């Protein structure tokens, strides 16, 4: 079973969704900042929102086709949908919530199915409770069970775990995996949490401003982000505009100067020319601070710098450092202490060439259509 989507939907003068993709069975993550069109996309597929044009298919069955004027009503689409706020029916018990979608079933099998799913999601004890009498994680399980018990052909989850703590998240993710091992249906999972992407996703589709930015494995999309917006979501703190100074084809590197500074850094080679304007990014955790000039080191970038400020945030120290341009560097409190770092101190930033990422400017999007 495969979900194929090709749809266009204009929501306002400056926002339109325009996507084309198809996903096989298994979990596909829909990744993107808020306002990128993730929820709109899910609503169109579920039939809660009518696309302006396009076609939506599950396997060979057409759910929507603007050319032939097919528009299967929501209630006949057999799509599981987990809403961001869960939308549990407040006046019905947990068991009644779950049974709600089994209206077409005979009474006894419906109760049996409900019992089974209560069991497998470990919520049997809550059967007679109302949704406002149980915890957030339990509510999430109930909502998931309610969507799954109807045996949907496609499952869509709109940031289902964003409000939960990490252990609860992992448990629910495991439950979902176990469930889908037997069913093997396409699951479209919206999130903007990297952790969920790596924990769940076999594929990632990243969305920006209503368009697909890139798609592939989580590693492809998040570890080597080719777009600044994605890089920001994937946790890159430092971005610099730079100009290519020289290119070394032999070593596969190039030297570039940070705009507005004399600082030069070595970055991985890319298909640009000397003089090209590029944009480079680096994670704050990938930069090493040295208290004195380091020798005999493989890292190619050793940049003299000065500490501007240090602030503790949880188990991490965030340093703001001036190396021609301002860098954000993350280090542990222990490292900070043993180096005796303090503001105004002279230090060196050590950066491996391949820690740098080249990112395309925000608006230059390479559409994969």
């Amino acid at each position, binding site marked *: 079973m495969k979900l194929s989507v090709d749809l266009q939907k204009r929501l306002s003068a400056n926002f339109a969704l325009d996507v084309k993709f198809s996903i096989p069975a298994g979990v596909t993550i829909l990744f993107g900042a808020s306002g990128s069109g993730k929820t709109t996309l899910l609503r169109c597929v579920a039939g809660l929102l009518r696309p302006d044009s396009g076609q939506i298919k599950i396997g060979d069955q057409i759910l929507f086709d603007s050319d032939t004027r097919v528009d299967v*009503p929501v*209630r006949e689409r057999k799509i*599981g*949908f987990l809403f961001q706020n869960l*939308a549990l*029916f407040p*006046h019905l018990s947990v068991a009644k919530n779950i049974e709600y979608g089994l209206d077409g079933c005979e009474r006894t099998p419906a109760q049996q199915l409900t019992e089974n799913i209560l069991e497998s999601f470990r919520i049997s004890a809550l059967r007679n409770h109302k949704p406002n009498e149980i915890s957030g994680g339990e509510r999430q399980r109930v909502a998931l069970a309610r969507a799954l018990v*109807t045996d949907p052909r496609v499952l869509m989850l709109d940031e289902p775990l964003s409000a939960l703590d990490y252990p609860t998240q992992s448990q629910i993710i495991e439950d979902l995996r176990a469930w889908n091992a037997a069913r093997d249906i396409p699951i479209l999972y919206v999130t903007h949490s990297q952790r969920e992407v790596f924990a769940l996703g076999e594929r990632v589709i990243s969305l920006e401003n209503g368009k697909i930015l890139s798609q592939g494995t989580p590693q492809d999309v998040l570890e080597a982000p080719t777009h600044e917006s994605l890089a920001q979501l994937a946790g890159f703190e430092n971005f610099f505009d730079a100009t290519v100074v020289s290119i070394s084809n032999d070593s596969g590197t190039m030297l570039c100067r940070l705009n507005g500074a004399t600082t030069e850094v070595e970055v991985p080679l890319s298909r640009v020319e000397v003089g090209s304007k590029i944009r480079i990014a680096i994670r704050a955790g990938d930069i090493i601070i040295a208290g004195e000039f380091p020798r005999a080191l493989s890292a190619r970038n050793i940049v003299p710098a000065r500490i501007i400020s240090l602030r503790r945030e949880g188990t991490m120290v965030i340093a703001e450092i001036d190396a021609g341009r301002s860098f954000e560097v993350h280090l542990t409190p222990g490292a900070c202490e043993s180096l005796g770092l303090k503001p105004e101190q002279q230090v060196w930033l050590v950066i491996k060439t391949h820690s740098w990422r080249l990112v395309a400017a925000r608006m230059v999007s390479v559409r994969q259509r």
Partner: protein
Amino acid sequence: MDWSAILLSLKLSSVVCGFLLLIGTPIAYWVTFSRWRWKFLVESVVALPIVLPPTVLGFYVLVGIGSQSPIGRAWAAWSGHGLAFTFEGLVIASFLYSLPFAVQPMTVAFSQVEHQLIEASSVLGASRLRTFIRIILPLSRNGVITATVLSFAHTMGEFGVVLMVGGNIPGVTRTVSIAIYDQVQSLDYAAANRTAWLLLLFSFAVLSVVYGLNRKSLAVWPLQR
């Protein structure tokens, strides 16, 4: 105490209230969920009795159901007697007169049901009717009770419309408010006072129920996320 008038009023109110729930509920549903651009015209018509003098409404109902009108003639052909100055005529007039008091509380209640719950219901395969019966109606319980109580009480206390359409026939169209008017006309202030007291207590009890319920519904509402 004019017990026949009180009984008649109770009977009239019950019958009218039944019809209002039966017909007012679909109207309220339509008013809440329709996206028709001229919807406001229907809303205005439903709300007219709030601002219209009862005599005006009564006059047009009287003309509308009179022996000259198509409705009056059809009714006469079917039942053998006219509508004007009968209990049935009174039911029609009271129904129209109390319609906004049934439709408006239900419209408010229906529109306060979280939209996502309605969407969740249809994603789970429920038809509109099933969604209405299993989700919207139970979550609008207080609104429906308010509508019932208000339309019952409003019918109980009406005067002008009844006088115009029903006249003053003891046991047929002489309701409790007309009885009070009669008692005052015949200078029997003591009897008028007793009847009026009864109506006053009744109205107070009804309003207490309505406001008590609505206060509770507001306190409960934010818990429902």
